[in-house]
């Protein structure tokens, strides 16, 4: 490991595992909130925060879930204060995810006051019928009301999440969603092709043959989305992420650049001090574990230069900045024999899946659509 811990950025991810309901596409760990659980959750989070390295500056914070915005204003405040107390200094960037139905002015005021810089709202679509087909609890009216409140609270950065290639969605509907999102004026947009992950209601529908995956259709949605977003002034910096100049999500960028991050909360993953691990997904198991001496680590992987080099490529190539392969080799000198990888890169360049310019490798637009296949091949040879 040559990762220089003291100069590398450190991120903090907090998992708020509560949701009001389960969306059909969501595979994240979440539970319906009960007051007792919430109180125990806070106590355990306090324990987790206490484990944060006392001498490291946390550069970015990301609260995800579940639905962090589901917490009441006073609970948000409590969690935020606990966290700030554990940090050396306030983070430069602090994102909180919110669902439209949970956005309330009092919560936003608390968050603003805590120092939250960025609100990310899961709009998904502006089309009532499509929202319903996704099993979302909000309607378009709630989106507009929530957005108005966010604007009034005056956060430095805002993001809206959109989902596309929803069964029944037309290309025109997708373009209309993008236009509508852009019209609201967020500094950042994330667009996600609907995926069918195991353990989701949608996956069940797929398995039952009620919905179908249509590759050509998905490709068309991707391409149309990219083109329109570009026209609207949102620059793509990762396969699914678009921002006004300088408004990229630094927390995510740092993660993809294989810097360190610490996850707090059930199911939260960490990459820290030479290893990667995850907290137990189950709320009770996680809480019990936090009261024992050793905070429970699951799926622990000891990182080495080879793994980190592979992951730097897999995740780095998803970003439009791509990767500086020569620099990566210097960063991970102990990665070992890489001739197979070089062969693969050569082949991918030949097939114009990768491009090379100014020492950086990047996925071509065609390659971006094949990022997983490229990632799989990289893992095969590294």
């Amino acid at each position, binding site marked *: 490991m040559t990762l220089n811990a003291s100069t590398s950025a450190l*991120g903090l*991810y907090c*998992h708020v595992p509560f949701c009001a309901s389960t969306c059909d596409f969501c595979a994240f760990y979440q539970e319906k909130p009960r007051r007792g659980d919430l109180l125990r959750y806070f106590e355990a989070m306090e324990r987790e925060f206490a484990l944060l390295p006392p001498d490291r500056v946390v550069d970015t914070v*990301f609260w*995800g879930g579940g639905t962090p915005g589901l917490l009441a204003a006073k609970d948000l405040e409590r969690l935020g204060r606990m966290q700030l107390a554990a940090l050396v200094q306030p983070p430069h960037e602090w994102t909180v995810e919110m669902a439209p139905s949970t956005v309330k002015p009092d919560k936003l005021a608390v968050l603003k006051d805590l120092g939250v810089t960025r609100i990310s709202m899961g709009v998904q679509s502006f089309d009532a019928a499509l929202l319903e087909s996704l099993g979302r609890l909000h309607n378009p009216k709630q989106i507009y009301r929530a957005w108005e409140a966010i604007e009034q609270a005056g956060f430095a950065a805002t993001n809206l999440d959109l989902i596309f290639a929803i069964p029944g969605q037309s290309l025109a509907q997708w373009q209309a969603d993008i236009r509508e999102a852009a019209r609201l004026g967020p500094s950042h947009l994330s*667009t*996600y*092709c609907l*995926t069918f992950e195991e353990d989701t209601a949608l996956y069940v529908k797929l398995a039952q043959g009620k919905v179908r995956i249509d*590759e*050509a259709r*998905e*490709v068309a949605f*991707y391409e149309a989305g990219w083109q329109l977003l570009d026209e609207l002034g949102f620059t793509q910096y*990762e*396969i*699914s992420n678009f921002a006004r100049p300088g408004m990229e999500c630094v*927390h*995510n960028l*740092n*993660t*993809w650049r294989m810097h360190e*991050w610490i*996850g707090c909360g059930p199911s*939260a*993953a*960490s*990459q820290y001090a030479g290893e*990667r691990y*995850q907290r137990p997904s189950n709320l009770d198991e996680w809480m019990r574990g936090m009261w024992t001496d050793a905070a429970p680590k699951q*799926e622990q*992987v000891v990182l080495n230069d080879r793994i980190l080099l592979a*992951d730097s490529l*897999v*995740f780095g190539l*998803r970003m439009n900045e791509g990767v500086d392969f020569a620099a990566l080799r210097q960063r991970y000198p102990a990665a070992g024999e890489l001739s197979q990888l070089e062969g693969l890169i050569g*082949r991918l360049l030949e*097939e114009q*899946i990768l491009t090379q310019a100014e020492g950086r490798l990047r996925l071509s637009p*065609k390659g*971006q*659509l*094949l*990022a*997983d*296949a*490229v*990632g*799989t*091949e990289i*893992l*095969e040879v590294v």
Partner: protein
Amino acid sequence: MPDLHHTRNFCIIAHVDHGKTTLSDRILELTRTVEMRDMKEQLLDSMDLERERGITIKSHPVSMVYRARDGQDYAFNLIDTPGHVDFSYEVSRSLAACEGAMLLIDAAQGIEAQTVANAHLALEQGLEIIPVINKIDLPSADVPAIQQQLEDVLAIPAEEAVLTSAKNGLGIEDLLEAAVARVPQPRWAEVEGLRMLIFDCIYDTYKGVICYVRVFSGTVKANDSILTMSDGMKAQVKEVGKFSPAMTKQDSLQAGDVGYIVTNRRDVAEIKLGDTITLTNTPAKEMLPGYKEVSPMVFSGIYPIDTSDYNKLKAGMGKLRLNDAAFVYQSENSVALGFGFRCGFLGLLHMEIIQERIRREYDLDVISTYPSVVYFVTKTDGETIEVHNPVNLPDPAEIDHIEEPMINASIHLPSTSIGDVLALVSEKRGLCEHTETIDEKRVMLVCRLPLNEILVDFNDRLKSITHGYGSMDYEMAGYEQAKLCRLDIMVNGESVDAFSSIVHKDKAEGRGRALCKRLKEILPRQMFKIAIQASIGSQVIARETISAYRKDVTAKCYGGDISRKRKLLEKQKEGKKRMKNIGSVSIPQDAFIKILKTSDGGSS
């Protein structure tokens, strides 16, 4: 002194399913060789596979005593012989151990291809033939018609036929009386010195190699020093015995006896069927007639589907070989399939049986490559080499000519399907040499065909054309020069050895096109465009393209999500592990299986 007057050695020969094993069982019952309560259906076919397929693979001799109507006891030795053309040499050796043959014919189905082939084999061995018309209890039985066929096709007088229903025990005693009266007493007993024919052998874990023998002259007992006359190898006799029907130790075997000997030999490969055994100190002057070396006719690669099964497969092959000297194998390495074995078989059925036994008895999943015959390739420098693996075929420029093995096939079929069968024969590059009428409904075609053309689907198609009524038998009929070439299949420019085959030039294009098309259906799309080409040498004769897939990306990839994401990719990677990489293309293992199972490789 042996009582030759009261000894009868005979076998039962028949087409598949004409009731041979049931008849043997009835004979055993009638001679009280086994008590009824010990009778197991099809006692003699002891191998599972034999029972299931209703075929006999190994010889099963049994000794019994029959009290005839004349009040005297006769020693009967019945040898149940393998009934398939692949084993015709083995059959001929089993027949050579006898003086008589019961030629069993199904009263409803009549004379079939194997009936004729087996009758000819028996006549060649100088056996007395007792025709038996069996299954006379069937409603569809037509005894007069069968008797007519006997006269017309085999020139056997109709009145010689014994009528039986083995199922119901009808006519069995008449048949045994016919054996007493018509099977000659043991021959060549007067020749000086021990002469003993090896007609089969098995491997026993405890005893080692057990040879099944027929003693023609002299006496053999334990501790005798013996000699196999084909190679002059010596051995020590450890035990002699008879089949009653279980192996039963005896003091000695004498002229006319059928039994077994155990020697100090441990390897079946050292035993040659048809060899003559004599005593080392007082050897006989001459071998028994008919011995020849057998060599495999059909070759195929056998590979474990799971490469970690290689050693298990190797062990299984070794064990099969212990009991089957005609099966040969050697290790082989295929780029596409990994480590496996090149195996030689006597013929198609033999190949199928070995493959099936590997699957069943050793619980192994195996994949077999396209079968090949043995070609004689004469190179431009005058050297002639044997090639049974397409990969070993020299460069076309180095080949002067290639000769391929031919067969003479006799095909029995209903006269209504004659046109379709002739078309099949000609599609398979065969020539019909003459046609013979068996009766008003059935004909026999005598054809000359290249052996490689019947390797894969000939029999299936014959059965389907004739609605199951056609049957075929064949014998090897030398070599002929032919326009042959190697057809290679290339995936993105890289030749896939497991898909190569030697084909006739006129058929190469069709087969190449069909294989490409099939591969296109089977291969999953990948990140790159895949070109599938069929080629002869450097000339591409068929081509298909599989377009690259366009999307394989998951959108969502949050910070904490990296472990999850990596797991997804690892899962995809595991899925790809079961694929073989040919150049840049990953080919799933089951694609090989599907292609190789495409019965004719798509030539039709």
